[in-house]
Each structure stands twice: as structure tokens, then as C-alpha cells.
């Protein structure tokens, strides 16, 4: 039975590349008596690069979790929250690179904010000589990470919050005289946090090791450790690969240290909250300030992201736009005309890779879930951890090894190799997105069909698949968005020769042509948006005459 073995096969397909990549990274780092580590230690930027990785990672994760909790505590169940909730999915679909570029267009000394305030408020008639972007402390990078991670954590929290019975707990606490925020933090959060712990760890590991956002917003002299590893790995002479591998091992160590630190704080925080709960402080006075702070934070992040994306769009069609004008003098499509010889092939390749990876991921996910249903299998926690592995182990740690393997197999620089690596990152998201809908489909439909004589195949093709059309398409759109946004796997396994919208947008970001950057970033942003739109529109169209299928 092929179907029965597929879940195991899929897990192997997920864990295999990660483990092979780790081995491929460890080997060059450790051969020649660990000479690579001496080379690494000789780099004068190392202590600061390592500190930047730890600092930006921990700070952005802590701030993201704090804001996520604050928004939930102060606003959950209010009409405002419903509006925030409807914005989460579109915000998540924005690729990291496009978000970073949008924020850069906003906060740079010559960015939109400075233009809007000049010269009437600031007196500036030329862009001020301030190091806002690429600041040496990684503050812009932290801000960019927070803007992307808060929506992610909120969505994760919302998907499990109902398991904590929030309404009845909050009501109980309210009848005992507790304020909203205190009630949430003391009665809901302690059971909610364990449910989102894995996503929080993934956010921490990601934030410490991100490369594309760091290239756009992060410090440069020295850069964060992961940026430097990528630079060594891509150095044309191939002499720095040992150093890159040693750096990757160090990076993994740093992530583990940060996770251990986080865990220790978790334990302490838990004790603190438990003690706090027994003290009986109703803390109703905290509600109003918390509410204002939550609104301010959500407003700033949401407005910032949307304004940044609007800035990208505006620059791509701006004719003449001098500092400190708040808007361009005219509209011109010349940037699109100039960029189109590069844009068209990059778009085609981006879509091709994303379609291949997403199709494979959707097939495997459906087969796994179908096997689960038919044979009564259940996903063990260990299996789920293996599935999460490509999201938990930082890309910068195992992708160099995978690149070395791809080189020896002589498939580096081909688009199928890139698509295959994308699959490793696409599949977990497709699975996580589709599994709940699949598992909660009323089993009596299938029983009814079987009682009518339907075979398992008929139940799948005629019932389950059409009934789950909308979730399948949504999961596929998530997969497309994940693939379209991939930077490091495309760069490393593509060997710099597979040019997608994302790699090109990041590569262009160090140059100064905002109009061309705008075209690439805007397309990078529009493709996932289009996928999500299709995922919503297609089921509505197909089921327009079926009221029971409207969601």
C-alpha cells in the first residue's frame, strides 16, 4: 500500500534535506582540524555580528509576543479586533523582502515620512545625513521583523485560542471583578502560551538568522552573522565555504543558546504569573492604558506596512519625485518599460518554481491526510516536530551544506533543484493550513456515502475534495506565497543563476534605483495577493448556486 506509507515518506522528505544539509555544513567546518573555526575567529567583526544576531532576534521576538498578547488582551472580542483579524491574512501574504523594502522606502532619510514632514516641520531641503536604515544597532531590522511577526503570532494564537475556553474564563474573571487585561493575562494566556510555543520558537530562530530582511534593513559594518555567512558562501572564489560552514555551526549554537535563555524566562514568567494570580490584584486600572497602547501599536504596524507598500507602488510609476516633495510630479510607466526585459523572465521563473513546489506539496499533504483518514492513523507529536523541522532549523544553518551537496550532484543552479528545496519549506505550511479543515470534515458524510456503496476513491474524489475545495485552494495560496517569498534557498541552491523576483528585489535594494526596486517589489507582492484572491474567488464562483458551500 503506497498510500499507507506516504506519511512516513513525506516526513523523510522533510527531515532528509535538513539532516543532509546539517551534515553537509558540519563536514567542511570540521575537516582539517577545525581550521575553518580559526579562520572564523580571525574575523574582527565576529563578536559584534554574533551579538547583533542575538540582540535583534531576542528583542524582536519578545516585542512581537508582547504586542500580540497586548492586542489580544485589550481587544479580543471587540469590533476593532474583527477588523484587525481581517487584515492578518493579507499582511501575512506580504513577502518579507517586499515588507522590508516598503519599510525602507518609508523610514529612510529620503523616505516618505521625512518627505511628508519636510520642509515645514523639519526644515530639511535635502535628505538629512542620518543613519536610519542599516543602523549599527539593528533597530530598523528589529522594527521590520516585528511588523511581520506580530501578524503571524496573532494568527497562530487565534487558531488555538478557542481551546482555552476564553469567553467563559474572561466572564468568570470579570464577575470576580477583574479588569479585561488582567483577566486575560492571568486566566487565558497561561494555557494559550503552550499552544503557540512552537511558533514562538520558530519566530525566534527565524529572526536571529534572517538574511533578506537583514540585507535591506540591517547593519552593514559588521552585518549580522547570517548575512556574513551568506556572503562567504556566495563568494566567487569558493575559498570561504569552510568559514561559512563554521559560521553556520556557530549560528546554530547561538540559536540554541537563545532558545535555552527563552525557555528559562518562560519558566520564570510562569511562576510570576501564577503568584500574581493568587494575589488577587484586579488591576482594572490597566485596561484603558493597555487599550490605547494596543490600538497605537496595531495602528502603527498596520499603517506602516500598508504605507510602505503604497510607497513601493508609487515609486514604480513616479515620473519626477524630488526631495522634499510629498508626492511625485507625474506618473510614468518608464520604469516598468525599462525593467520589463528582466521582470518578465523573473516573474515566469518565480511562478513556475512556486507552482511546481506548491503542486507537489498539495499532493503530498492530501495523500497524507487521506491516509490518516482511511487507516485511522494519528500524527504523533514526534511526527509533527519532524514536519516542523525545516521551519525550526534556521535556513542559514543547513542550506550551505545543501548547496555543497547540490554542487557535487551538479544540479546547483537549475530551477527544478530550487523548486525541490522550496518544497521543503512549502509543505509544512500547506499541511498546517489544510489539516484542520480536513480533520474536522463531518465523518458522517463519508459514512453516508459508503452506506450508499461508494468506494474510498469515490468518497475522496466526489466528496472530500469538492467539499474541501476552498481550504485546498487557500492552503495552495499559502504555499505559493511561501515559495514566492523564499530568498536564501533560491540564492544558494540556485547558485545566483536562478533569478526570481525576490532575489532580484533584494539584489537591487543596495543600489539606488527606487523606481526599478518598486517594480520588482510590487510584483513580488502582487503575485501572492493574486493567489489568495483566486483562492477566495474560485470556490465562490464554482459554488455560486450552493448556499451550503458559502463560507
Amino acid at each position, binding site marked *: 500500500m503506497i498510500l499507507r506509507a506516504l506519511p512516513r515518506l513525506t516526513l523523510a522528505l522533510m527531515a532528509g534535506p535538513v539532516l543532509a544539509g546539517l551534515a553537509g555544513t558540519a563536514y567542511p567546518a570540521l575537516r582539517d582540524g577545525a581550521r575553518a573555526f580559526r579562520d572564523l575567529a580571525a574575523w574582527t567583526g565576529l563578536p559584534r555580528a554574533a551579538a547583533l544576531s542575538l540582540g535583534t532576534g531576542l528583542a524582536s521576538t519578545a516585542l512581537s509576543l508582547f504586542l500580540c498578547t497586548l492586542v489580544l488582551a485589550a481587544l479580543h472580542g471587540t469590533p476593532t479586533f474583527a477588523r484587525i483579524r481581517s487584515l492578518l491574512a493579507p499582511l501575512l501574504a506580504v513577502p518579507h523582502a517586499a515588507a522590508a523594502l516598503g519599510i525602507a522606502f518609508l523610514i529612510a532619510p529620503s523616505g516618505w515620512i521625512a518627505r511628508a514632514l519636510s520642509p515645514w516641520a523639519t526644515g530639511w531641503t535635502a535628505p538629512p545625513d542620518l543613519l536610519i536604515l542599516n543602523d549599527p544597532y539593528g533597530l530598523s531590522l528589529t522594527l521590520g521583523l516585528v511588523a511581520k511577526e506580530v501578524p503571524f503570532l496573532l494568527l497562530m494564537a487565534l487558531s488555538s485560542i478557542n481551546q482555552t475556553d476564553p469567553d467563559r474564563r474572561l466572564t468568570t474573571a470579570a464577575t470576580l471583578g477583574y479588569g479585561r487585561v488582567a483577566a486575560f493575562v492571568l486566566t487565558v494566556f497561561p494555557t494559550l502560551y503552550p499552544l503557540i510555543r512552537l511558533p514562538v520558537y520558530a519566530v525566534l530562530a527565524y529572526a536571529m538568522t534572517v538574511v533578506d530582511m537583514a540585507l535591506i534593513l540591517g547593519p552593514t559594518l559588521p552585518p549580522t552573522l547570517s548575512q556574513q555567512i551568506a556572503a562567504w558562501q556566495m563568494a566567487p572564489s569558493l575559498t570561504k565555504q569552510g568559514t561559512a560552514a563554521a559560521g553556520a555551526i556557530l549560528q546554530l549554537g547561538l540559536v540554541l543558546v537563545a532558545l535555552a535563555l527563552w525557555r528559562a524566562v518562560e519558566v520564570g514568567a510562569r511562576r510570576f504569573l501564577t503568584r500574581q494570580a493568587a494575589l488577587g490584584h484586579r488591576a482594572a486600572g490597566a485596561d484603558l492604558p493597555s487599550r490605547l497602547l494596543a490600538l497605537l501599536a496595531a495602528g502603527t504596524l498596520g499603517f506602516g506596512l500598508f504605507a510602505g507598500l503604497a510607497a513601493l507602488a508609487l515609486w514604480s510609476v513616479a515620473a519626477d519625485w524630488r526631495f522634499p516633495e510629498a508626492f511625485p510630479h507625474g506618473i510614468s510607466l518608464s520604469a516598468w518599460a525599462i525593467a520589463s526585459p528582466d521582470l518578465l523572465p523573473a516573474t515566469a521563473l518565480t511562478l513556475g518554481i512556486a507552482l511546481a513546489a506548491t503542486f507537489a506539496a498539495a499532493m503530498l499533504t492530501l495523500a497524507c491526510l487521506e491516509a490518516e483518514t482511511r487507516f*485511522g492513523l494519528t500524527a504523533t507529536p514526534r511526527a509533527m516536530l519532524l514536519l516542523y523541522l525545516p521551519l525550526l532549523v534556521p535556513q542559514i544553518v543547513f542550506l550551505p551544506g545543501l548547496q555543497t551537496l547540490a554542487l557535487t550532484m551538479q544540479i546547483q543552479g537549475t530551477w527544478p533543484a530550487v523548486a525541490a528545496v522550496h518544497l521543503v519549506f512549502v509543505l509544512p505550511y500547506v499541511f498546517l493550513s489544510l489539516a484542520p479543515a480536513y480533520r474536522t470534515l*463531518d465523518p*458522517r*458524510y463519508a*459514512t*453516508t*456515502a*459508503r*452506506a*450508499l*456503496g*461508494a*468506494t474510498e476513491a469515490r468518497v475522496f474524489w*466526489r*466528496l472530500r475534495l*469538492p*467539499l474541501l*475545495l476552498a481550504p485546498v485552494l487557500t492552503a495552495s495560496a499559502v504555499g505559493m506565497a511561501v515559495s514566492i517569498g523564499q530568498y536564501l534557498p533560491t540564492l544558494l541552491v540556485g547558485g545566483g543563476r536562478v533569478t526570481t523576483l525576490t532575489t532580484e528585489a533584494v539584489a537591487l535594494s543596495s543600489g539606488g534605483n527606487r523606481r526599478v526596486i518598486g517594480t520588482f517589489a510590487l510584483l513580488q507582492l502582487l503575485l501572492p495577493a493574486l493567489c489568495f484572491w483566486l483562492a477566495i474567488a474560485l470556490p465562490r464562483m464554482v*459554488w455560486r*448556486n*450552493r*448556499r*451550503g*458551500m458559502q463560507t
Partner: protein
Amino acid sequence: MTLVLENLTVDHGDRRLVSLDLRIEGGEITTLMAPSGSGKSTALNAIIGTLPQGFARSGRVLLNGRDLTRLPTRLRRIGLLFQDDLLFPHLSVGGNLGFALPSGPDRTKRIAAALASVGLDGYAPRDPATLSGGERARVALLRCLLAEPEALLLDEPFSRLDAALRDRTRSLVFDRARNLGLPVLLVTHDAQDADAAGGPVLTPLGLPAR
């Protein structure tokens, strides 16, 4: 036609949930009556072959002499009506009935005739979600019967209907089953259902319920 439960027992851990030894002749309706959570659904699961893991079954289920005990649900030819009509929401009314009808000629005509027989002429292209509760119940019954079952299991199929509708639907289902000579096992916690069925009334452990 005859449905025989031959020393059928189901245990969950140490607890015996079902113990039935009975014979239902064609046109007869036997009722299982007990409060919810007392093994009624378990008995149905054992008969149609959908017992979850952790339940131990012994004994046999025989339909017209065929031993069903090891057959998958789809080969048992036991029709099933749930509390909810469970019409497939993505198919039209006709599509739902077509799903049940064994392949053969004149499908459209047979579906139309079946609908006409319960006063639903011309309903084939309709979206099931636009039907009233009574209409949906009738379509669900038709869908069940069009698959040409040799026995009928009813899992509280009338409990979601209001009183007037319940009487009408109940007599429709019972009349159809009697006319087709189907053995019927009715699971309910409603004494009126049991009265209307007119046959023996048992608990899932095989004792007289009254």
C-alpha cells in the same frame, strides 16, 4: 429479507455497551431505546462497520444470510439515515440522488420519478440548502433508498423535525420501508417513535425497554 444480529456484543474496556441477539424480518421495525450515551450509536457503528479503535466486537451480523461482519461499509447494503440529513452541500438535489443510484440507464428519469413520488416534482436542479426541513428529510430518505439497500438503520432521524413534520416524515419512512419489505432498526430516545414503529422495543443490552 432478514437482518440477524447473532450474539452481537461490543465492549469498551471492561464495560459492555451492546449485547443483542435478534432477528428482524422484512417490513418489521425493531426499536433500540435508551438515553443518549448508552451504547445506541455503538450498536449502529457495529452493524454498519464503523466501530472506532478501542471497541471490541464479537458475534455476527447477517443480512439475508450474508455474513457482513468483516465487510467494509460500502458492501453491506444497509441504508442509513442520521439525525441530520447530511445532504452533500456541493451537489444539487439530483446530484445527491445520482450519487446513490447504481449505474444504469434512464438515470434522469428515475431521479425525477423518485422525487415526484414524494411530492418534490422538478426539484432535481435545486440547491439542497434552499429546501425546507421536511423536503430535505424526504430527499435524504430517497437518497438512502435509491442505493437499493436490503435493510435500514435509522439513527434518531426524526429528532430534528418539529412535531407535525415529524409524524408525516415518520409515516413516510415507515411506509416506504414496509412496502419494500426492508428490515428496520430504529434508534431513538423518543417513546412516540417507538410506539409508531409498533415492533419490539429493546435496550442496547437486549433487555425489554418497557
